[in-house]
């Protein structure tokens, strides 16, 4: 598929994260609660591959890297309204939304004591782009350059008011350029082939964040200790252990915990029956959707718009949402409610079996049968097979026969890329906390759409136009309105059927403070966690 730089920048691809996240299916556990005064224990089902900011892409990696590396800007707690200063004390945006000027603070130091300079920022951002690893999709069009020792200019190839938000993301963390270069790192154009610093950065950190990396074992635990040279406020806990633990054991452990411990993957039904003394913080930031192939050569049935509409009408949306548990809600559109631009709850889809049957009858479809592929994993504590089974049961009521086709994650991704899958089910979250990032992934001919035969030629012109309008609108409020219009059209004319939104949840021990769920990629700001 053809990907322009602008498009490439925005291809939201949770599934690559999933690909790298096969650990999510592995059952894991941990020891009994960490109760000491100094150690904070974070239980999570590991989705981690690398702790190099240039490569980090998965949930656990993002949480960790956010504690190890400072970014130019950041968000505090769960407030996603406006990026806050971090290494940059302030920034300005040009009128055309193409040039962004950041002023760096002068007291920030790396963990080895060397000051953070504009050179480090330029090196880190350019290296990220040129590594072309998973996180680079969002920064493909960005170029960083230095004006003076404390001023960095980031230029975007296309107008994009959301660049400051991108620069909050853990992968844009600023590394100590001297150390990383010494360990084989480069920000040159050929970094994708010649950079060899990842190995070093998976064993030690080279950042200015509140913590430094003590040890990293992708299968069992990551240990962080407080950075003695940290320029900001000292975190409460001097030692943090992220422990690989399967969801069911997180539930058992949190039900028992007395100490400084929090869990990141408990959601939905798993939250029921937990002691009420535990603290929960959540935000609906993920959506789950069905995708039908629009290419009649792949499946005549799936490509039939009447069939798509019939499936859409057959789903018991509140029932699906209930499977994700209390925090989840039926989907109204593709933008999760955690982000501006989501459709209001009142527009949630609803089941209408009679209408579904009528649609099928009018289209002359009798007992249509389609295979539904999904990755056989547990994502955020929910077994995707369970959801698929529910969808199968609902569709059956309308006379639609879905046969379930669970695939190991790698096979799922392979087949998905092949574009020959009639119907699939998968979760999707945003690459960075801006809802407009979904447009280029889902718009006809792009990212996800390309893998499901939804070309511009096969798409309704109104959908194409509405998508373009979202991209061309620079004013945030206007863009949100455009996003809503776009979603309403998607619900009518696209081969996507959003089912439900699910929330990320942080469950924390009763004595902890500041353990807020951040729908910004890093889930929780480890350094902000304190105790009463």
């Amino acid at each position: 598929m053809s990907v322009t730089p602008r498009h490439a920048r925005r291809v939201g691809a949770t599934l690559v994260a999933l690909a790298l996240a096969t650990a999510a299916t592995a059952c894991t556990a941990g020891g009994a609660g960490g109760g000491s005064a100094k150690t904070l224990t974070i239980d999570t089902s590991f989705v981690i591959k690398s702790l190099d900011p240039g490569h980090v892409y998965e949930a656990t990696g993002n949480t960790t890297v956010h504690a190890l590396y400072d970014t130019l800007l950041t968000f505090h707690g769960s407030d996603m309204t406006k990026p806050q200063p971090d290494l940059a004390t302030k920034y300005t945006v040009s009128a055309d939304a193409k040039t962004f000027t950041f002023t760096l603070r002068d007291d920030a130091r790396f963990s080895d004591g060397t000051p953070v300079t504009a050179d480090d920022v330029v090196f880190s951002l350019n290296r990220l782009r040129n590594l072309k690893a998973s996180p680079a999709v969002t920064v493909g069009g960005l170029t960083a350059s230095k004006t003076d020792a404390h001023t960095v200019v980031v230029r975007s190839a296309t107008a994009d008011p959301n660049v400051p938000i991108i620069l909050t993301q853990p992968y844009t963390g600023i590394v100590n350029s001297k150390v990383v270069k010494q360990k084989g790192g480069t920000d040159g154009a050929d970094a994708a082939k010649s950079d060899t610093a990842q190995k070093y950065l998976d064993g030690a950190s080279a950042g200015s964040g509140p913590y430094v990396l003590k040890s990293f074992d992708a299968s069992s635990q990551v240990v962080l200790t407080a950075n003695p040279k940290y320029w900001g406020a000292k975190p409460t806990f001097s030692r943090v252990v992220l422990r690989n633990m399967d969801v069911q054991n997180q539930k058992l452990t949190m039900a028992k915990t007395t100490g400084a411990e929090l869990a990141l993957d408990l959601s939905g039904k798993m939250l029921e029956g937990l002691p009420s003394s535990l603290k929960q913080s959540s935000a609906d930031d993920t959506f789950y959707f069905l995708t039908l192939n629009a290419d009649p050569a792949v499946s005549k049935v799936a490509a039939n718009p009447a069939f798509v509409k019939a499936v859409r009408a057959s789903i018991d949306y509140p029932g699906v949402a209930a499977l994700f548990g209390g925090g989840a809600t039926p989907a109204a559109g593709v933008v999760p409610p955690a982000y501006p631009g989501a459709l209001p709850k009142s527009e949630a889809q609803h089941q209408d079996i009679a209408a579904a049957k009528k649609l099928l009858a009018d289209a002359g479809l009798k007992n249509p049968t389609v295979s539904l592929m999904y990755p056989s994993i547990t994502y955020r504590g929910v077994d995707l097979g369970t959801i698929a089974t529910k969808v199968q049961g609902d569709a059956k009521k309308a006379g639609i026969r879905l046969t379930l086709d669970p695939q190991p994650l790698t096979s799922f991704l392979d087949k998905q890329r092949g574009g020959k899958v009639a119907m699939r089910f998968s979760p999707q979250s945003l690459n960075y906390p801006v809802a407009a990032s979904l447009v280029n992934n889902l718009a006809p001919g792009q990212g996800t759409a390309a893998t499901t035969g939804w070309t511009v030629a096969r798409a309704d012109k109104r959908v194409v136009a509405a998508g373009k309008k979202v991209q061309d609108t620079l004013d945030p409020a206007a863009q949100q309105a455009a996003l809503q219009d776009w979603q309403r059209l998607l619900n009518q004319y696209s081969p996507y059927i959003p089912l439900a939104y699910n929330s990320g949840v942080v469950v924390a021990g009763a004595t902890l403070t500041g353990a807020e769920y951040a729908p910004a990629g890093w889930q929780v700001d480890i350094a902000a966690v304190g105790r009463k």
Partner: protein
Amino acid sequence: MSASVAAAGEAPAAARRRPRVPHLVRFLAKRLAVTVGLLWGVTVVTFALVHVVPGDSATANLSEQALNDPALVAAYRARWGLDQPVYVQYLRYLWNLLHGDLGTSQQTGKPVLSDLAHYVPATMELAVPSMVLALLIGTAVGMLAAVRHGRATDQVVRVGSLLGLSTPPFWLSLVVLYQFFYLLGVSPSGGRLSTDFSPPPTVTGMYTVDSALAGQWAEWWDAVQHLVLPVLVLTCLTVATLIRFVRSAMLEVLSTDYIKAAHAKGLPGFTVLRRHLLRAGLVPVITVSGLAFAALLSGTVLVENIFGWPGIGQYAYRSATALDLPSILGVSLFVALVYTVVNLIVDLVYGLIDPRIRLS
């Protein structure tokens, strides 16, 4: 197994007439050849299997953006040698293997050899105590059942050992976790060490041993507590086979003439037990322990996953799901090597301990 095949293939009488040492050397040489052949077979099978898998390791390991850049995909394939025909990849792997290089794991980015060095001790920390416990309990209970042949004790042992053989290990793991961790709260839920503790300085890689060596007794106690549940499950898995074996072997010995003679001579039961039965009982234990150990290693895959134990079982599982060929090969080779070496040792010890072989 191999030794018995060798024995069956040769004329026993002729073999017996040869001087002892050359026989042993010949035996060892033959076993070595068999082992090498076996390991080679393992590489062939694993290679073939992984190449049948529809998944592409580039999809699993590269980003969306990189996958859309043919140059990067080509570079990735070149880096891992995936651009070559399968047979070239295979020959290259063999060549490196002969030089002690097992390749680099695509998922951890570390040499497979160092991954194995990291994960194997964790598994051994589970497997060794389980095996020792199973051997002790298996021998004792098996002998007891044999001595009480046909009585109530025997019945109970029979049902108990069959229960052990019939319980799904993954289910048992869940049940003990629920019972001892969730309901009773007397045991940790999994992992090797509480997060309050740092792993002891690495000597053997086994936390219980290392912490004892370092004199860190709090860590030692914590590590022991983490061992209890998974070892319990693995012991249940293994002990049943051993009990059944010891029992039947003891019954055979009990019915032999020399034991009957010993009893007839009026030797006290305990003396007979000590002098003759114990030694005779050891033979079948040793015979089957090699196989039991292999079964134990197999059992660790599911058990380690449920208990969050970072050993080779979990490593194998993750490698298999990520289609990480070098790691899968590494684990397979390791297990095959353990399998053959353990069985070789078993055969050698067997020869030393069996009185009938010594007499000949």
